[in-house]
C-alpha cells in the first residue's frame, strides 16, 4: 500500500485527537451543568 505510514499516522492522530477532544467536551459540559443548574436560575428570578 502506498504511503501507508502517513495514512495510518494521520488516522490514529486524527481520530485520537477528535475522540479525546469530544470526551473532554463532555466532561466540560457536565461540569458547567453542575455549576449552573436551571432550577437555580428560576428560583433566583422568583
Amino acid at each position, binding site marked *: *500500500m*502506498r*504511503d*501507508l505510514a*502517513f*495514512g*495510518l*499516522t*494521520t*488516522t490514529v*492522530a*486524527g*481520530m485520537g*485527537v*477528535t*475522540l*479525546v*477532544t*469530544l*470526551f*473532554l*467536551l*463532555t466532561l*466540560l*459540559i*457536565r461540569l*458547567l*451543568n453542575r455549576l*449552573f*443548574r*436551571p432550577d*437555580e*436560575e428560576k428560583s433566583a428570578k422568583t
Partner: protein
Amino acid sequence: MWETVLSSLAQGFTHLTWQSALLMALGGVLLYLAVARGIEPLLLVPIGFGVILGNLPLGNLAASDTGGVINVIYNAGILTEIFPALIFVGLGAMIDFGPMLANPTVLIFGAAGQFGIFLTLLLGLQFFTRAQASSIAVIGAMDGPTAIYVTSRFARELLPAVSIAAYSYMSLVPVLQPPIMRALTTKKERAIVMPYGEKKVSKKVKVLFPVVAGVLMMLIAPMGAPLMGMLMLGNFLKESGVVGRLADVSSTVLINIVTLLLGLSIGAAMLGGNFLQVTTLAVFGLGLVAICLDTVTGVLIGKLMCAVTRGRINPLVGAAGTSAFPMSARVVQKEGQKANPRSFLLWHAIGANTGGQIGSVMAASVLLAILSNTPLAG
C-alpha cells in the same frame, strides 16, 4: 467593414469548445435540479449559473480570468479562505447546542462520524498525493465549508470537484444513509425507544459553552481556529441574547450572501478543460465512499454503545454523528419511527449531529496540522 462586424459578432460562437458547451449543459442540469426538483436550491442555483457564466467564451467570467468580476470574488473569498469562515459565523448563529448540552454523551457520536474521512484518506493515498487525498477525504466531513477550507489551502486544483461533491452528497444524505442504517441494524435495534425528556439547560451554560469550549478546542487544534472560532462566535451572538440583530443578520443575510458568492465563484471555477477529467470522477467516487463509511462507522459505534448500555441507546443515533446538519438527524428520526412509531429520536440525533459539526472541524484541524508539517507530495 461588414466582415469585421460579423466576425466580431460571431466570436462567441467560434470560440465555443465542446467541453465548454458540455459544462454549460451541466450548469443547466444543476439549475433544473434546483428549480424543478427543489434539490439544495440555495447552493445549486448560484453554482449552476456560475458554471454557465464561467464557460462562456470571451466573457471574462471564469474564476481564473484575471481581473474579471468572478475572479475578484474568487480571489477575495475562496483563496483567502474568508467565505468558509463567514459561513461558519452563520452556522453558529443557526445551531442550537441545547440538545447536546442536555445530553453530552451523544457527543461521542460526533467522533464516530469522522472515521470515514480517515479511511478514505488511506484509500485516496493510493491514487493521489497526500494533500489531494486529504482534501478529498474531508468530503466525508459532510461539511461543504470545511471541505472548501482544507482544499483551498492544499489542493486548489481539486477545489471545484471537491466542493461540488461535498455539497451534492450532503443533499443526498436522505437517500444515502437509510439503506446503510437498515443493513447494519436489526428491526429490534431500530425500534429501541430512548427516553425523551427535554432536559433543561441553564442559560449560563449556553452562553459560556461557545467561549469556554471554543477556547479549549482552539488550543488543542489551532489550525482549525478560523472555522471553530467563527462557529463559536456565531453561537455566542445567538445565545448571549444581547446582540439579536447581529445574530439575525449572521443567520440570514450574511450566510445567504456568502453562499451566493461562494456558489457563483465555485461554479465559475468548473471549466471544461480542467473539470472533464478522470480525476473529477475519482474525487466523486472517493467522496461517496467517505460519506458511506461515515454512516457505517457511526452506526457500528451506535451498536457498540447499545451493547455497553444494555440496549438503552438506539444505534441509529450514531448515523447522525456527521456534519450534515440537520439532515442526518431527520433521517434518524424518520428511520426510528418507521421501526417503532412510538420512538422519538430527534432530540438525541440533533445532539449527535451538533457533535458531528464540532467533530468534523476537529478532524479537519488535525489534517491541516499534519499536512502543514509534512512534505505534501507523498
